[in-house]
């Protein structure tokens, strides 16, 4: 496939193609609906014959994430993908990677829970993705794509951020974005880094003591509390830097808006349609779409509160991001939540009705 060609594919397929193209070294995954096309597409594309990328179907999500952990220890660009129940199983490994400060990419194509739940789309893993998820004080860098194009673009972005900060990054998508087909221009091919480049760029990695250097040890273990606090403080300082530098968001029709919807991922797409409908009825409403869910665009939401009379948090869950909006707004304007549960996607008309009845 030539560079820059416009093509039509599913979000899950775009993730796989983008991974091959951005020089990913290894993918380790386990089938689960609605994300299995990622592993299927990679298996069909056979990148081990072209770029040399390793693709392996693991025996479980627990194993997948620990393969990612092992690969990340060695400085390679490694990733996994799963859907909600599988991502729950991965939390242990994600916590270890955050603790050992390792770059990696985890893709969660969310489905409705709790438990085995449903295979239909949901955004109910916001808390899990943004507030830690596993044990210990940590954050992932969380990107929320709202189109197939962003599914493709965020793979490279996530790796860039993960390596910049030596922190695991997550693409938090949902079944709708994963399963839908849209136009996409795949990113250009970037060669995988050579072993020499990795050894140079990741002097911390466990690549073997090439050149007789001192041993590198990747661990999250430190039994001396005074030392463990120092490590935690260093990680927290890194998080403050990420919060200061890496917030990403999109504004849509906010210039003259009296009300704002805050929504991410596929909910933001629905919000745009609702805004078209509402504006045709004379309701001036706009959208703020967080692209990074962590770091959350706190300042931008706070400033939004000074410009509008009310904010609606539209989420495909029971109300999770709304807590971060309320923390940002500090009571300046009413902040309401609307969402549907169990794999039901709110339709644009019902969102307009909620806008009308709420404000």
């Amino acid at each position, binding site marked *: 496939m030539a560079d820059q060609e416009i093509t039509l594919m599913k979000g899950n397929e775009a993730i796989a193609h983008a991974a091959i193209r951005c020089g990913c070294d290894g993918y380790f995954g386990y089938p689960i609906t609605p994300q299995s096309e990622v592993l299927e597409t990679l298996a069909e594309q056979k990148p081990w014959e072209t770029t040399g990328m390793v693709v392996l179907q693991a025996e479980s999500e627990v194993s*997948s994430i620990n393969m990612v952990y*092992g690969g990340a220890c060695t400085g390679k660009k490694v990733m996994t993908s799963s859907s909600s129940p599988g991502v729950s199983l991965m939390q242990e490994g994600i916590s270890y990677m955050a603790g050992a400060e390792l770059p990696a990419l985890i893709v969660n194509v969310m489905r409705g829970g709790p438990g085995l739940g449903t295979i239909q789309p949901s955004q109910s893993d916001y808390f899990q993705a943004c507030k830690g998820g596993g044990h210990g004080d940590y954050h992932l860098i969380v990107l929320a794509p709202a189109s197939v194009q962003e599914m493709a673009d965020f793979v490279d972005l996530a790796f860039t951020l993960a390596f910049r900060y030596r922190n695991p990054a997550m693409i938090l998508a949902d079944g709708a974005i994963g399963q839908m087909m849209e136009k996409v221009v795949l990113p250009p091919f970037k060669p995988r880094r050579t072993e020499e480049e990795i050894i140079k760029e990741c002097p911390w990695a466990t690549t073997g003591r090439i050149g007789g250097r001192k041993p590198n*040890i990747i661990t999250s273990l430190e039994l001396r509390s005074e030392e463990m606090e120092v490590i935690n403080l260093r990680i927290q300082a890194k998080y403050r830097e990420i919060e200061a530098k890496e917030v990403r968001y999109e504004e849509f029709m906010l210039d003259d808006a009296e009300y704002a919807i805050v929504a991410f991922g596929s909910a933001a797409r629905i919000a745009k349609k609702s805004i078209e409908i509402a504006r045709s009825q004379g309701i001036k409403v706009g959208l703020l779409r967080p692209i990074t869910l962590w770091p959350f665009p706190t300042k931008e939401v706070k400033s939004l509160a000074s410009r509008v009379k009310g904010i609606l948090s539209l989420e495909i869950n029971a109300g999770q991001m709304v807590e971060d909006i309320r923390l940002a707004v500090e009571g300046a304007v009413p902040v309401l939540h609307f969402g549907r549960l169990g794999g039901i996607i709110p339709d644009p008309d019902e969102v307009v009705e909620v806008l009308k009845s709420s404000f």
Partner: protein
Amino acid sequence: MTREEIIEKGQLVYKKPTLLNDTPMHYCPGCSHGVVHKLVSEVIEEMGMTDKTIAISPVGCAVFAYKYIDVDWQEAAHGRAPALASATKRLWPDRLVFTYQGDGDLACIGTAETIHALNRAENITIIFINNAIYGMTGGQMAPTTLLGMKTATCPYGREVKLHGYPLKVTEIAATLDGTCYVTRQAVHTVAAINRAKKAIRKAFEYSMQGKGSNLVEIVSTCNSGWKMSPEKANKWMEENMFEFYHLGDLKDTGADK
């Protein structure tokens, strides 16, 4: 007389491997870990793989193995070492990749990772220390605890009705098509130590030759957990452990591949 003076006079009769550093080990006196660490270090050095080795340590007594052997180490979550090793070896095929795991880590919480890594014929070696007890957490029952053996969580002795049977993971591993070399060794006598070293060397060589996965079980003592003197523990091991965990090679297809 200083160490250097003794060496100068040609009286050196033993030298620890260079890879084994001077950090005092946290292992209990009489524990088998120290001997196995030494053997692993010697084999890496003798194979000239010092700069190409990536090791994975477990959760358990050997969690700090990375403090003692001067190669690159990854510290895995409990039971997951074979998953880390699988990815590491696939991503760096010319490296010597091995895990070092105890019975709780390998045969209990990490059974799935162990069996599947071995059966995928990952070109790695698993060093498996089986002392039939959880050492680090204070002597609880392991999957390999013998029937009748007393631990903190089977204080009246392991019995089938309550706890089921001890697990012979190494026998299972020998039935897997992915394994190349599966052996059970011990380090309680000089002769046994020499055999164990040969076994580790063979396993490492097979994994570098791409012949599949290799499992070296070392039946070991845990004096603290067993509440015995080192000497008595060795005797008890010979009389009880070896009865159930027979020493020797269970499988060696390296020559055929």
